[in-house]
Protein backbone atom coordinates (compact mmCIF):
# COMPACT_ATOMS: atom_id res chain seq x y z
CA UNK A 1 0.00 0.00 0.00
CA UNK A 2 1.14 3.59 -0.53
CA UNK A 3 2.31 5.86 2.23
CA UNK A 4 -0.19 8.48 3.38
CA UNK A 5 -0.21 11.73 1.40
CA UNK A 6 1.71 14.73 2.70
CA UNK A 7 0.15 18.05 3.60
CA UNK A 8 2.79 20.77 3.20
CA UNK A 9 0.63 23.82 3.55
CA UNK A 10 -1.32 23.63 6.82
CA UNK A 11 0.49 25.60 9.51
CA UNK A 12 0.47 25.27 13.29
CA UNK A 13 -0.89 28.79 13.46
CA UNK A 14 -3.92 27.85 11.32
CA UNK A 15 -4.53 24.76 13.44
CA UNK A 16 -4.35 26.85 16.59
CA UNK A 17 -6.76 29.51 15.36
CA UNK A 18 -9.48 27.37 13.77
CA UNK A 19 -8.76 23.74 12.96
CA UNK A 20 -12.33 22.68 12.26
CA UNK A 21 -12.63 23.68 8.56
CA UNK A 22 -9.23 22.04 8.01
CA UNK A 23 -10.36 18.82 9.68
CA UNK A 24 -13.62 18.77 7.74
CA UNK A 25 -11.65 18.94 4.51
CA UNK A 26 -9.19 16.29 5.70
CA UNK A 27 -12.05 13.91 6.60
CA UNK A 28 -13.41 14.30 3.06
CA UNK A 29 -10.16 14.29 1.10
CA UNK A 30 -7.19 13.00 3.14
CA UNK A 31 -8.40 11.28 6.32
CA UNK A 32 -4.90 9.87 6.87
CA UNK A 33 -2.30 12.52 6.13
CA UNK A 34 1.25 13.40 7.10
CA UNK A 35 1.25 17.02 8.23
CA UNK A 36 4.71 18.48 7.66
CA UNK A 37 4.41 21.40 10.04
CA UNK A 38 3.50 19.12 12.99
CA UNK A 39 5.67 16.15 11.90
CA UNK A 40 2.83 13.76 12.68
CA UNK A 41 0.44 11.56 10.71
CA UNK A 42 -3.03 12.95 11.39
CA UNK A 43 -5.98 10.56 11.70
CA UNK A 44 -9.24 12.46 11.42
CA UNK A 45 -11.94 9.76 11.23
CA UNK A 46 -13.67 8.32 14.31
CA UNK A 47 -13.03 4.69 13.32
CA UNK A 48 -9.29 5.32 12.94
CA UNK A 49 -8.80 7.25 16.17
CA UNK A 50 -10.76 4.68 18.16
CA UNK A 51 -8.82 1.80 16.61
CA UNK A 52 -5.50 3.42 17.51
CA UNK A 53 -6.50 4.19 21.11
CA UNK A 54 -7.96 0.71 21.59
CA UNK A 55 -4.85 -1.05 20.23
CA UNK A 56 -2.03 -0.12 22.61
CA UNK A 57 0.04 -3.18 21.59
CA UNK A 58 0.70 -1.46 18.24
CA UNK A 59 0.20 2.19 19.15
CA UNK A 60 2.24 2.91 22.26
CA UNK A 61 2.03 5.79 24.68
CA UNK A 62 5.48 4.90 25.96
CA UNK A 63 7.70 7.62 24.68
CA UNK A 64 10.15 8.91 27.27
CA UNK A 65 11.71 11.26 24.73
CA UNK A 66 9.03 13.92 24.73
CA UNK A 67 9.27 17.31 26.44
CA UNK A 68 6.79 15.98 28.99
CA UNK A 69 9.63 14.30 30.89
CA UNK A 70 11.68 17.45 31.64
CA UNK A 71 8.46 19.44 32.13
CA UNK A 72 7.19 17.06 34.84
CA UNK A 73 10.68 15.95 35.90
CA UNK A 74 9.30 12.42 35.65
CA UNK A 75 8.35 9.72 33.20
CA UNK A 76 4.63 9.93 33.94
CA UNK A 77 1.84 7.38 33.53
CA UNK A 78 0.57 9.33 30.52
CA UNK A 79 3.62 8.06 28.68
CA UNK A 80 3.54 4.46 29.90
CA UNK A 81 1.78 1.30 28.76
CA UNK A 82 0.55 -1.96 30.21
CA UNK A 83 0.88 -3.06 33.82
CA UNK A 84 3.11 -0.17 34.87
CA UNK A 85 0.53 2.35 33.63
CA UNK A 86 -2.36 0.49 35.22
CA UNK A 87 -0.67 0.29 38.60
CA UNK A 88 0.11 3.99 38.76
CA UNK A 89 -3.33 4.93 37.50
CA UNK A 90 -5.26 2.64 39.82
CA UNK A 91 -3.23 4.03 42.75
CA UNK A 92 -5.27 7.24 42.53
CA UNK A 93 -8.42 6.10 40.75
CA UNK A 94 -10.47 5.63 43.93
CA UNK A 95 -10.33 9.39 44.53
CA UNK A 96 -12.09 9.94 41.22
CA UNK A 97 -15.05 7.61 41.65
CA UNK A 98 -18.71 8.65 41.55
CA UNK A 99 -19.12 7.20 45.04
CA UNK A 100 -16.42 9.37 46.61
CA UNK A 101 -17.68 12.45 44.80
CA UNK A 102 -21.21 11.87 46.01
CA UNK A 103 -20.33 10.95 49.61
CA UNK A 104 -17.40 13.21 50.33
CA UNK A 105 -17.39 16.10 47.99
CA UNK A 106 -20.65 17.06 46.30
CA UNK A 107 -21.80 19.45 49.04
CA UNK A 108 -18.36 21.00 49.30
CA UNK A 109 -18.28 21.59 45.54
CA UNK A 110 -21.70 23.21 45.61
CA UNK A 111 -20.44 25.48 48.36
CA UNK A 112 -17.38 26.45 46.36
CA UNK A 113 -19.48 27.29 43.30
CA UNK A 114 -21.88 29.34 45.45
CA UNK A 115 -18.97 31.24 47.03
CA UNK A 116 -17.66 32.28 43.66
CA UNK A 117 -21.11 33.16 42.34
CA UNK A 118 -21.74 35.30 45.44
CA UNK A 119 -18.84 37.53 44.44
CA UNK A 120 -20.28 38.35 41.01
CA UNK A 121 -22.11 41.63 40.39
CA UNK A 122 -25.59 41.60 38.88
CA UNK A 123 -26.42 43.60 35.78
CA UNK A 124 -22.83 43.78 34.60
CA UNK A 125 -20.87 42.03 31.92
CA UNK A 126 -18.27 39.73 33.44
CA UNK A 127 -15.58 37.57 31.85
CA UNK A 128 -16.84 34.26 33.20
CA UNK A 129 -13.82 32.46 31.80
CA UNK A 130 -11.41 34.19 34.17
CA UNK A 131 -13.84 34.85 37.03
CA UNK A 132 -15.58 31.48 37.26
CA UNK A 133 -14.52 28.71 34.87
CA UNK A 134 -10.81 28.78 35.78
CA UNK A 135 -10.86 29.44 39.54
CA UNK A 136 -13.80 27.14 40.34
CA UNK A 137 -12.16 24.27 38.44
CA UNK A 138 -8.92 24.91 40.31
CA UNK A 139 -10.60 25.18 43.71
CA UNK A 140 -12.44 21.90 43.26
CA UNK A 141 -9.34 20.08 42.05
CA UNK A 142 -7.40 21.28 45.08
CA UNK A 143 -9.81 19.31 47.28
CA UNK A 144 -9.97 16.24 45.04
CA UNK A 145 -6.20 15.95 45.14
CA UNK A 146 -5.80 16.87 48.82
CA UNK A 147 -3.63 19.93 48.18
CA UNK A 148 -5.27 22.27 50.67
CA UNK A 149 -3.40 25.53 51.06
CA UNK A 150 -2.58 25.93 47.39
CA UNK A 151 -4.37 28.99 45.98
CA UNK A 152 -6.41 28.84 42.80
CA UNK A 153 -3.89 31.24 41.29
CA UNK A 154 -1.06 28.81 42.10
CA UNK A 155 -2.97 25.78 40.87
CA UNK A 156 -3.81 27.47 37.57
CA UNK A 157 -0.26 28.73 37.08
CA UNK A 158 1.30 25.35 37.88
CA UNK A 159 -1.11 23.71 35.47
CA UNK A 160 -0.30 26.11 32.66
CA UNK A 161 3.47 25.89 33.31
CA UNK A 162 3.35 22.09 33.13
CA UNK A 163 1.30 22.16 29.94
CA UNK A 164 3.58 24.74 28.32
CA UNK A 165 6.63 22.68 29.24
CA UNK A 166 5.10 19.44 27.99
CA UNK A 167 4.23 21.14 24.71
CA UNK A 168 7.72 22.58 24.27
CA UNK A 169 8.56 20.51 21.22
CA UNK A 170 11.02 23.17 20.12
CA UNK A 171 13.03 22.24 23.28
CA UNK A 172 13.67 25.88 24.13
CA UNK A 173 15.17 26.46 27.60
CA UNK A 174 12.71 29.11 28.87
CA UNK A 175 9.55 26.94 29.22
CA UNK A 176 11.59 24.33 31.13
CA UNK A 177 13.00 27.02 33.42
CA UNK A 178 9.42 28.06 34.19
CA UNK A 179 8.20 24.47 34.71
CA UNK A 180 11.25 23.78 36.92
CA UNK A 181 10.23 26.61 39.19
CA UNK A 182 6.65 25.30 39.29
CA UNK A 183 7.95 21.81 40.09
CA UNK A 184 10.00 23.19 42.99
CA UNK A 185 6.93 24.93 44.38
CA UNK A 186 4.71 21.88 43.94
CA UNK A 187 7.26 19.51 45.47
CA UNK A 188 7.57 21.76 48.51
CA UNK A 189 3.81 22.05 48.90
CA UNK A 190 3.27 18.29 48.54
CA UNK A 191 6.00 17.58 51.11
CA UNK A 192 4.39 19.95 53.61
CA UNK A 193 1.11 18.01 53.44
CA UNK A 194 2.38 14.44 53.70
CA UNK A 195 2.35 14.09 57.47
CA UNK A 196 -1.22 15.28 57.75
CA UNK A 197 -2.45 12.90 55.04
CA UNK A 198 -0.63 10.02 56.73
CA UNK A 199 -2.04 10.95 60.15
CA UNK A 200 -5.56 11.60 58.89
CA UNK A 201 -6.30 9.37 55.93
CA UNK A 202 -9.04 10.72 53.67
CA UNK A 203 -10.41 10.21 50.18
CA UNK A 204 -8.20 12.74 48.40
CA UNK A 205 -5.90 11.38 45.69
CA UNK A 206 -2.77 12.29 47.64
CA UNK A 207 -3.97 10.58 50.81
CA UNK A 208 -5.17 7.47 49.00
CA UNK A 209 -1.82 7.09 47.25
CA UNK A 210 0.23 7.70 50.43
CA UNK A 211 -1.82 5.35 52.59
CA UNK A 212 -2.09 2.48 50.11
CA UNK A 213 -1.08 -0.97 51.41
CA UNK A 214 1.50 -1.26 48.67
CA UNK A 215 2.15 2.33 47.64
CA UNK A 216 3.73 3.37 44.37
CA UNK A 217 7.11 5.15 44.72
CA UNK A 218 7.00 8.70 46.10
CA UNK A 219 8.37 10.04 42.81
CA UNK A 220 5.36 8.60 40.98
CA UNK A 221 2.88 9.85 43.60
CA UNK A 222 4.20 13.34 42.96
CA UNK A 223 4.17 12.75 39.19
CA UNK A 224 0.54 11.59 39.39
CA UNK A 225 -0.46 14.71 41.31
CA UNK A 226 1.24 16.85 38.69
CA UNK A 227 -0.52 15.00 35.89
CA UNK A 228 -3.82 15.66 37.65
CA UNK A 229 -2.94 19.35 38.04
CA UNK A 230 -1.86 19.59 34.40
CA UNK A 231 -4.92 17.71 33.18
CA UNK A 232 -7.62 18.61 35.68
CA UNK A 233 -8.04 22.37 35.49
CA UNK A 234 -7.98 23.53 31.88
CA UNK A 235 -10.27 20.76 30.70
CA UNK A 236 -13.22 21.43 33.04
CA UNK A 237 -12.58 25.16 32.61
CA UNK A 238 -12.72 24.91 28.82
CA UNK A 239 -15.65 22.50 28.87
CA UNK A 240 -17.62 24.85 31.11
CA UNK A 241 -16.93 27.87 28.89
CA UNK A 242 -17.78 25.92 25.73
CA UNK A 243 -21.08 24.69 27.17
CA UNK A 244 -22.01 28.22 28.29
CA UNK A 245 -21.33 29.43 24.76
CA UNK A 246 -23.32 26.58 23.21
CA UNK A 247 -26.35 27.14 25.42
CA UNK A 248 -26.35 30.93 25.32
CA UNK A 249 -26.09 31.02 21.52
CA UNK A 250 -28.91 28.47 21.19
CA UNK A 251 -31.68 29.87 23.41
CA UNK A 252 -34.33 27.36 22.30
CA UNK A 253 -32.08 24.51 23.29
CA UNK A 254 -31.32 26.23 26.58
CA UNK A 255 -35.02 26.48 27.37
CA UNK A 256 -35.49 22.81 26.62
CA UNK A 257 -32.44 21.85 28.69
CA UNK A 258 -33.85 23.78 31.63
CA UNK A 259 -37.30 22.25 31.17
CA UNK A 260 -35.97 18.68 31.06
CA UNK A 261 -33.03 19.36 33.39
CA UNK A 262 -30.92 17.84 30.63
CA UNK A 263 -27.64 19.26 31.95
CA UNK A 264 -25.84 15.98 31.42
CA UNK A 265 -26.73 16.00 27.73
CA UNK A 266 -25.67 19.66 27.46
CA UNK A 267 -22.33 18.68 28.99
CA UNK A 268 -21.77 15.72 26.65
CA UNK A 269 -22.61 17.81 23.62
CA UNK A 270 -20.26 20.59 24.71
CA UNK A 271 -17.25 18.30 24.96
CA UNK A 272 -18.19 16.58 21.71
CA UNK A 273 -18.52 19.87 19.87
CA UNK A 274 -15.20 21.32 21.07
CA UNK A 275 -13.22 18.62 22.84
CA UNK A 276 -10.96 20.22 25.47
CA UNK A 277 -8.25 17.71 24.53
CA UNK A 278 -8.27 17.74 20.76
CA UNK A 279 -5.38 15.48 19.78
CA UNK A 280 -3.11 12.76 21.21
CA UNK A 281 0.08 11.12 19.99
CA UNK A 282 0.95 7.44 19.75
CA UNK A 283 4.21 5.81 18.69
CA UNK A 284 3.77 3.09 16.04
CA UNK A 285 5.52 -0.11 17.17
CA UNK A 286 5.08 -2.19 14.00
CA UNK A 287 4.28 -1.66 10.33
CA UNK A 288 0.53 -1.30 10.04
CA UNK A 289 -2.16 -0.12 7.63
CA UNK A 290 -4.80 2.49 8.37
CA UNK A 291 -7.42 3.56 5.84
CA UNK A 292 -5.56 2.01 2.94
CA UNK A 293 -2.15 3.50 3.73
CA UNK A 294 1.04 1.99 5.09
CA UNK A 295 2.02 3.45 8.42
CA UNK A 296 5.63 2.45 9.07
CA UNK A 297 7.02 1.39 12.43
CA UNK A 298 8.58 4.35 14.23
CA UNK A 299 6.07 6.84 12.85
CA UNK A 300 4.08 8.95 15.31
CA UNK A 301 0.37 9.12 14.60
CA UNK A 302 -1.86 11.79 16.01
CA UNK A 303 -5.45 10.89 16.79
CA UNK A 304 -7.52 13.99 16.17
CA UNK A 305 -10.51 13.27 18.42
CA UNK A 306 -11.68 16.84 17.79
CA UNK A 307 -12.30 15.74 14.22
CA UNK A 308 -13.70 12.30 15.11
CA UNK A 309 -16.28 14.09 17.23
CA UNK A 310 -17.62 15.79 14.10
CA UNK A 311 -17.22 12.79 11.79
CA UNK A 312 -20.11 12.72 9.28
CA UNK A 313 -20.20 8.91 9.61
CA UNK A 314 -21.45 9.30 13.18
CA UNK A 315 -22.93 12.76 13.55
CA UNK A 316 -25.50 14.80 11.67
CA UNK A 317 -24.82 18.54 11.81
CA UNK A 318 -21.64 17.73 13.67
CA UNK A 319 -20.34 21.27 13.25
CA UNK A 320 -23.23 22.59 15.36
CA UNK A 321 -24.00 22.44 19.08
CA UNK A 322 -27.09 20.20 19.24
CA UNK A 323 -27.91 18.95 22.75
CA UNK A 324 -30.73 16.62 21.84
CA UNK A 325 -28.97 14.10 19.63
CA UNK A 326 -30.13 10.49 19.33
CA UNK A 327 -26.70 9.20 20.18
CA UNK A 328 -23.58 11.00 21.21
CA UNK A 329 -20.71 8.54 21.03
CA UNK A 330 -17.98 11.16 21.16
CA UNK A 331 -14.35 10.46 21.95
CA UNK A 332 -13.69 13.54 24.07
CA UNK A 333 -12.57 11.30 26.95
CA UNK A 334 -10.56 9.12 24.58
CA UNK A 335 -10.73 5.34 24.60
CA UNK A 336 -8.52 2.42 25.53
CA UNK A 337 -6.21 2.21 28.57
CA UNK A 338 -5.67 5.97 28.69
CA UNK A 339 -9.39 6.79 28.75
CA UNK A 340 -9.68 9.96 30.85
CA UNK A 341 -9.30 9.07 34.54
CA UNK A 342 -11.29 12.18 35.43
CA UNK A 343 -14.31 11.42 33.24
CA UNK A 344 -16.64 10.62 36.14
CA UNK A 345 -15.50 13.71 38.03
CA UNK A 346 -15.93 15.97 35.03
CA UNK A 347 -19.44 14.69 34.37
CA UNK A 348 -20.45 15.28 37.95
CA UNK A 349 -18.68 18.52 38.73
CA UNK A 350 -19.18 20.37 35.46
CA UNK A 351 -22.34 18.67 34.20
CA UNK A 352 -24.29 18.13 37.41
CA UNK A 353 -23.04 20.92 39.67
CA UNK A 354 -21.36 23.89 38.00
CA UNK A 355 -23.45 24.50 34.89
CA UNK A 356 -26.87 24.07 36.57
CA UNK A 357 -25.73 26.29 39.48
CA UNK A 358 -24.80 29.08 37.08
CA UNK A 359 -28.17 29.04 35.34
CA UNK A 360 -30.00 28.74 38.63
CA UNK A 361 -28.26 31.84 39.99
CA UNK A 362 -28.45 33.88 36.79
CA UNK A 363 -31.41 32.47 34.86
CA UNK A 364 -31.41 35.34 32.37
CA UNK A 365 -27.71 35.66 31.75
CA UNK A 366 -26.82 36.45 28.17
CA UNK A 367 -23.90 36.60 25.79
CA UNK A 368 -24.40 40.01 24.15
CA UNK A 369 -21.68 39.60 21.53
CA UNK A 370 -20.82 36.00 20.64
CA UNK A 371 -18.30 37.26 18.08
CA UNK A 372 -16.26 38.76 20.92
CA UNK A 373 -15.50 35.25 22.18
CA UNK A 374 -12.06 34.10 21.03
CA UNK A 375 -11.19 30.44 20.63
CA UNK A 376 -7.66 29.09 20.67
CA UNK A 377 -5.72 25.89 20.67
CA UNK A 378 -4.56 22.88 18.72
CA UNK A 379 -3.74 20.21 21.34
CA UNK A 380 -6.03 21.75 23.94
CA UNK A 381 -8.84 24.01 22.80
CA UNK A 382 -11.54 26.26 24.18
CA UNK A 383 -12.67 29.86 24.47
CA UNK A 384 -10.18 32.22 26.11
CA UNK A 385 -12.81 34.73 27.22
CA UNK A 386 -16.56 34.61 27.88
CA UNK A 387 -18.09 38.07 28.37
CA UNK A 388 -21.50 37.29 29.85
CA UNK A 389 -24.06 39.80 31.12
CA UNK A 390 -25.41 38.59 34.44
CA UNK A 391 -28.98 39.11 35.48
Amino acid at each position, binding site marked *: MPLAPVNDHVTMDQLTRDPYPIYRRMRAETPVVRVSSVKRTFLTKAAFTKYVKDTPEIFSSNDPNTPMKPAFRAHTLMRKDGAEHRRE*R*MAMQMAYTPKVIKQDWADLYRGIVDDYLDRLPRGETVDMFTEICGPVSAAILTHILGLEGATTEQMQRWSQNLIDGAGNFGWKPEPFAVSDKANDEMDAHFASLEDRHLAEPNNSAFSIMLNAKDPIPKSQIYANLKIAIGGGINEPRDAMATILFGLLTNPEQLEEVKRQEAWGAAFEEGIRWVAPIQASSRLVLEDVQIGGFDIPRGDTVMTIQASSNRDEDLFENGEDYVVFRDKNVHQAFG*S*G*PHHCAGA*HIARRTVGEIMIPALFERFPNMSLPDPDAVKWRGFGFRGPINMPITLN
Partner: protein
Amino acid sequence: MVKVIYVAKDGTRTEVKAQVGDTVMQTALDNDVAGIVGECGGSMMCATCHCYVDDAWTDAAGPRKDGEDDMLDCAADEVKETSRLSCQIQLTPELNGLVVHLPEDQV
Protein backbone atom coordinates in the same frame (compact mmCIF):
# COMPACT_ATOMS: atom_id res chain seq x y z
CA MET B 1 -24.06 -17.85 17.50
CA VAL B 2 -25.36 -17.53 21.03
CA LYS B 3 -28.19 -15.55 22.52
CA VAL B 4 -27.75 -12.75 25.10
CA ILE B 5 -30.62 -11.05 26.90
CA TYR B 6 -30.16 -7.56 28.34
CA VAL B 7 -32.76 -6.45 30.87
CA ALA B 8 -32.95 -2.69 31.38
CA LYS B 9 -33.71 -1.12 34.75
CA ASP B 10 -37.32 -0.54 33.64
CA GLY B 11 -37.69 -4.23 32.76
CA THR B 12 -37.34 -3.90 28.99
CA ARG B 13 -35.75 -7.06 27.57
CA THR B 14 -33.54 -6.90 24.51
CA GLU B 15 -32.56 -10.23 23.01
CA VAL B 16 -29.66 -10.29 20.57
CA LYS B 17 -27.61 -12.87 18.69
CA ALA B 18 -23.91 -12.77 19.45
CA GLN B 19 -20.66 -14.31 18.28
CA VAL B 20 -18.86 -16.71 20.57
CA GLY B 21 -15.63 -14.96 21.57
CA ASP B 22 -17.15 -11.48 21.62
CA THR B 23 -17.69 -9.77 24.93
CA VAL B 24 -21.06 -8.93 26.46
CA MET B 25 -20.08 -5.24 26.17
CA GLN B 26 -19.11 -5.38 22.49
CA THR B 27 -22.28 -7.33 21.67
CA ALA B 28 -24.36 -4.59 23.31
CA LEU B 29 -22.56 -1.86 21.36
CA ASP B 30 -22.84 -3.74 18.06
CA ASN B 31 -26.57 -4.14 18.59
CA ASP B 32 -27.29 -0.63 19.89
CA VAL B 33 -28.44 -1.92 23.27
CA ALA B 34 -29.11 1.13 25.43
CA GLY B 35 -27.61 1.09 28.91
CA ILE B 36 -24.09 -0.08 28.09
CA VAL B 37 -21.68 2.72 27.27
CA GLY B 38 -18.30 0.97 27.15
CA GLU B 39 -16.47 4.22 26.71
CA CYS B 40 -12.92 2.84 27.10
CA GLY B 41 -13.51 0.16 24.50
CA GLY B 42 -12.99 -2.80 26.83
CA SER B 43 -9.71 -1.81 28.46
CA MET B 44 -11.22 -2.05 31.95
CA MET B 45 -10.57 1.63 32.60
CA CYS B 46 -13.96 3.37 32.76
CA ALA B 47 -16.58 1.18 34.47
CA THR B 48 -19.30 2.29 32.05
CA CYS B 49 -20.21 -1.25 30.95
CA HIS B 50 -21.33 -2.37 34.42
CA CYS B 51 -23.97 -5.12 34.52
CA TYR B 52 -25.52 -7.52 37.03
CA VAL B 53 -25.35 -11.13 35.91
CA ASP B 54 -28.67 -12.87 36.48
CA ASP B 55 -28.54 -15.21 39.48
CA ALA B 56 -29.06 -18.23 37.25
CA TRP B 57 -25.95 -17.38 35.22
CA THR B 58 -23.33 -16.28 37.75
CA ASP B 59 -21.50 -19.62 37.79
CA ALA B 60 -21.41 -19.90 34.03
CA ALA B 61 -20.16 -16.33 33.69
CA GLY B 62 -17.32 -17.12 36.03
CA PRO B 63 -15.52 -15.01 38.65
CA ARG B 64 -14.35 -11.45 38.22
CA LYS B 65 -11.07 -11.00 36.40
CA ASP B 66 -7.85 -9.56 37.83
CA GLY B 67 -8.31 -5.85 38.48
CA GLU B 68 -12.06 -5.94 37.84
CA ASP B 69 -12.92 -5.45 41.52
CA ASP B 70 -10.98 -2.20 41.70
CA MET B 71 -12.54 -0.84 38.55
CA LEU B 72 -16.05 -1.84 39.68
CA ASP B 73 -15.51 0.50 42.63
CA CYS B 74 -15.62 3.26 40.04
CA ALA B 75 -19.06 2.29 38.73
CA ALA B 76 -21.77 4.94 38.87
CA ASP B 77 -24.45 2.62 40.27
CA GLU B 78 -24.56 0.28 43.25
CA VAL B 79 -22.12 -2.64 43.09
CA LYS B 80 -23.61 -5.99 44.08
CA GLU B 81 -22.22 -9.51 44.36
CA THR B 82 -23.39 -10.20 40.83
CA SER B 83 -21.78 -7.04 39.43
CA ARG B 84 -19.43 -7.50 36.49
CA LEU B 85 -17.84 -5.32 33.87
CA SER B 86 -19.41 -6.65 30.72
CA CYS B 87 -16.18 -6.08 28.78
CA GLN B 88 -14.68 -8.86 30.89
CA ILE B 89 -17.33 -11.48 30.10
CA GLN B 90 -16.39 -13.31 26.94
CA LEU B 91 -19.15 -15.32 25.34
CA THR B 92 -18.77 -19.11 25.19
CA PRO B 93 -21.23 -21.73 23.90
CA GLU B 94 -22.10 -22.39 27.57
CA LEU B 95 -23.36 -18.81 27.89
CA ASN B 96 -26.06 -19.27 25.23
CA GLY B 97 -29.13 -17.58 26.71
CA LEU B 98 -27.15 -15.44 29.20
CA VAL B 99 -29.26 -12.87 31.02
CA VAL B 100 -27.68 -9.66 32.32
CA HIS B 101 -29.45 -6.83 34.13
CA LEU B 102 -28.40 -3.24 33.46
CA PRO B 103 -27.95 -0.54 36.09
CA GLU B 104 -29.80 2.74 35.94
CA ASP B 105 -26.63 4.80 35.48
CA GLN B 106 -23.33 4.15 33.75
CA VAL B 107 -21.86 7.64 33.83
